[in-house]
C-alpha cells in the first residue's frame, strides 16, 4: 500500500518521459502531456500544502527556534544574551537535570516494553480465541483510557493509589495488608506506580494497533500452521510476531517517545515527587522554562532530550523496516 503511494509520481514521470522521448509523437502532443504532468504535480503539492504549512509553523519553526534559544540566556521577555554552549554544560553539571534522564529510561520499561509485550499477547489471544463480540468489548475497554483526559485520569489514579484508596483496600481484603502504602508518595514505588498508570493508558493503543495488524495477516498462514498441528505459542512466535514487525516498530517508537518525553502523566500524578524520584526531563524543562524563566537552559535540555530520543528510536525504525523494504 505504502509503496504504491510512494512510487506513483515516479511512474507517472516515467510514462511522461517515455512519451517525450518517443520520436513518433508530435511535439504539440508531448507539450500538452508535459503540461498535464506539471498540472498534476502542482495539484499534488496543493493537496499537501495545508498540512505542510501547519507542519512548518507548529513544528519546524518552534524546533529551529528552540535550538537557537538553547545558545542564549533569556528570560522569555527581556533581551537575549549569547552564551554559546554554556547551557549545555550546565545541563551536564547539575545533577537534578541529568539525573532525570535515568528516570525517563526506567519509564521506557513501563510505557513501552509492558504495553507492547502485553498488547501482543492480548491481541493474539483475542484473534485466536475471541474474534467476535467478546473481542470487540475487550478492545473497547482497553482503548477507553486513550479517550479519557489524562488530567482526570491522574486525579482518579491519585485516589485509587492513596493510602485509603481502592488498590490498598483490595490488597487488605486479600490479606496483603502488610504491603499497603501511599504508592505515589513512596520513594521505591512512586515510579513503578506512575509506570503502571502509563501501562493502563498505552496498553489499549498498542493492542488495537497490533490487532489491526494481525487481521491483515493472511489467514491461510494460520490455517496451514494449525493443520500442521502448531500450538498457539508456535503460531505466535513464528507467524504473528515476525509479520507484525512493522506494527511493533510503530508501537515501540510511539511509546518510547512517550516515555522519554513524558510530562503529562507524571505531572498529574506526582509532579516529580517524592524527592525527585519521579522527576523526568519533561517536568524539569517545564519548571526551568515557566517557573524559573530560564528559556535557554530549558531549550538546551529539550534539545538534548530530542537527540536522545532520536538515538534510541532510529535503530528501532531500522530493525522494524529491514525485512519489509
Amino acid at each position, binding site marked *: 500500500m505504502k509503496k504504491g503511494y*510512494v512510487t506513483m509520481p515516479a511512474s507517472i514521470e516515467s510514462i511522461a518521459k517515455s512519451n517525450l522521448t518517443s520520436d513518433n509523437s508530435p511535439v504539440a502532443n508531448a507539450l500538452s502531456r508535459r503540461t498535464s504532468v506539471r498540472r498534476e504535480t502542482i495539484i499534488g503539492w496543493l493537496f499537501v500544502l495545508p498540512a505542510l504549512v501547519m*507542519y512548518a509553523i507548529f*513544528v*519546524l*519553526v*518552534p*524546533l529551529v*527556534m*528552540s535550538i537557537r*534559544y538553547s545558545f542564549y*540566556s533569556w*528570560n*522569555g*521577555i*527581556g533581551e537575549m544574551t549569547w552564551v554559546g554552549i554554556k547551557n549545555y554544560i550546565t545541563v551536564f553539571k*547539575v545533577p*537534578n537535570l541529568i539525573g532525570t534522564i535515568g528516570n525517563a529510561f526506567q519509564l521506557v520499561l513501563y510505557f513501552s516494553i509492558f504495553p507492547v509485550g502485553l498488547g501482543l499477547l492480548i491481541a493474539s489471544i483475542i484473534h485466536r480465541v475471541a474474534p467476535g463480540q467478546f473481542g470487540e468489548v475487550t478492545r473497547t475497554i482497553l482503548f477507553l483510557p486513550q479517550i479519557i483526559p489524562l488530567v482526570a485520569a491522574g486525579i482518579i489514579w*491519585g485516589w485509587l*493509589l*492513596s*493510602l485509603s484508596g481502592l488498590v490498598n483496600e483490595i490488597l487488605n481484603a486479600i490479606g496483603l495488608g502488610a504491603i499497603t*502504602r*501511599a504508592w*505515589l*508518595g*513512596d*520513594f521505591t514505588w512512586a515510579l513503578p506506580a506512575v509506570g503502571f498508570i502509563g501501562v493502563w493508558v498505552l496498553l489499549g493503543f498498542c493492542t488495537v494497533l497490533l490487532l489491526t495488524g494481525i487481521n491483515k495477516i493472511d489467514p491461510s498462514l494460520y490455517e496451514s500452521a494449525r493443520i500442521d498441528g502448531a500450538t498457539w505459542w508456535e503460531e505466535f512466535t513464528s507467524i504473528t510476531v515476525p509479520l507484525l514487525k512493522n506494527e511493533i516498530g510503530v508501537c515501540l*517508537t510511539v511509546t518510547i*517517545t512517550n516515555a522519554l*518525553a513524558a*510530562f503529562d502523566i507524571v505531572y498529574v500524578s*506526582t*509532579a*516529580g*515527587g*517524592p*524527592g525527585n524520584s519521579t*522527576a523526568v526531563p519533561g517536568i524539569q*524543562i*517545564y*519548571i526551568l*522554562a*515557566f*517557573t*524559573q*524563566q*530560564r*528559556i535557554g537552559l*530549558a*531549550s538546551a*535540555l*529539550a534539545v538534548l532530550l*530530542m537527540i536522545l*530520543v*532520536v538515538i534510541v*528510536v*532510529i535503530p528501532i*525504525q*531500522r530493525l522494524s*523496516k529491514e525485512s519489509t523494504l
Partner: protein
Amino acid sequence: MSKKRLSILLVSLLLMASMLLSACGAAATPAATATEAQTAAATEATTEVATETAVATPSCGTDPVVLNAYFETGFDLPFKLAEEFTKQYPNVTWDIKQDQFSNLINETPRLLAGDNAPDLIRLPTLVSFAKQGLLMNLDGYATAFGWDQWPVPQLSQNRVAEDGTRGSGTLYGMGLNYSLTGVFYNKKLAAQIGMTTPPQTLAEFEDYLAKAKAAGLLPIMQWGSAKSGMGLAFPLQNLMASVGSSEPVSEWIFNKEGATIDTPSNLVAAQHLETWIKNGYFPTDINAIEYTDAAARFGKGEGVFTFNGDWQNAGYDADMPGNVGFFLMPPAEAGGAPAAMSAPLTYGIAAKAQHADCAAFFLNWVATNDAARAIDVAVGGSNPGGPADATMPAVAEGSVTNDTLAEGARLGKTGSAMDFIANATSAIFAQGWTPELQKMVGGKQDAAGLLKAVQAEYELELAQ
C-alpha cells in the same frame, strides 16, 4: 536505499518535532516577545507619565471603566470585593479571568508583557517582574493615598530595591489582606490530651505532640505532595523562628547579599523537625497528601494540630464550627517574642495597564472602606491591614478568626513577621524545599543535608 534514508529522516524529524512541541512549548510562545519587549519599553515611558499625572486625583472617575483582572481560582475574596466595589462605584465593571496559583506563577510574565496587560493581577512573586519593568511603580500612589503612613511591615514585603533585594525600595504591589500562619488545633482532641490553653514554649508544645502520639491520635496533619508543594516548610519555618531570630531568615528570603539558610540555629530547627518525623508525628502518607486533602482530613477530625494560614479559617469553621483554635508557634524560651510567617495577598498593576488609577483606587478602597474590610475578614479570614487607626470588623462568635486576629495583634505588638521561605526565589519551593523535605520524610535526607541542599539550589538560582 535513498528512499529508506528519506523515510528515516522524516520519521526522526517528526519525532523531534513532536518532542519539541511538548517540551519546548515554552520557547515557542514568547517568540513574538521581541516586539512586545519593544512596546513594553515604549509604554514604560508613558507609564511614568501616567503615574505622575495619577498622583493628583487617582480615582475611577465617572466614565464607564472595565477593570481587566486576573484572580486566583479557589479563593472567593477578590471576587466578592469586586462585586462590592461595583455596587459602590457602578461605573466600574470587571473583566475577570482566573487561574490556579501554580499556573499564574508561570503565566504572569507573559500576561504582564502581553498586549492586554491586566489592571490588577494576583502576584505570586514580584522581584523578577519588577526588575524586568513589567510592574507599575506604585510609589506615586502610596504618596497620593497616604499608604506610606500605614504601619511599615504591610508595605515592606512588596518593596524592591535597585539591587533586586526585597524589603525596601520601590513599591510594586499591595496586599488585599495580610495572612498569618501558625498552629491550628482541634479543641476536642486537644482537651483529650490535657491541653486547655495554648502552649507557651516549644518544649510544652512538643510535650503535647508526644501525648497525642501516646493517645493514639495523629499529632499533626500536614500535606507534602509535590503537586501542592511540601507543607512541612510551614512547621520548619515556625521552628526556625522559635529557636532563633527571624531576622536572618527574612534576609535570606529577601535575597540579601551573603544570606544563608544554613545557620546553626536553623540546623537546630531542622533537627527538631527531623525528630518529629521520626517520632511519627505526621501522617505516614504525607508525601502523597495534597493541600486540600490535608485541610479536609483535619476538618474531619484527623490530627490534633495542623500548621496552616488564616486563609483556611472559613474552611475550618465550616468543617468544625466552634471546634478550631489557633495559636502562634511558641518560642523556645518562656517569654520570648513570637514570630510568624505573615504575607500580603499581593496584587499588582501591570506597567502597561490601561486603568492603573482605578486599580490603585480599588487597592486603597479594599484597605479603607468598612464594607470591604468586613468582606476581607469574613471571606478572606485575614487582617485587612490599612491605616493603624482603622476599625477592625466584627467577627462571628466561635469563629477561629477571633483567634487569628487576636494572635495577629499580639504578633504586631511584640513579635516579628516574616515572609515564607518558599518565596525566596521563584523555584526554591519546587526545586529546593519540596524535594529535600520529602527526602527527609523518606529517611533519605538529614537536617544538615537539607539546609545545605536548599542553600545550594538558592545560590544556583540567584547566580543566573
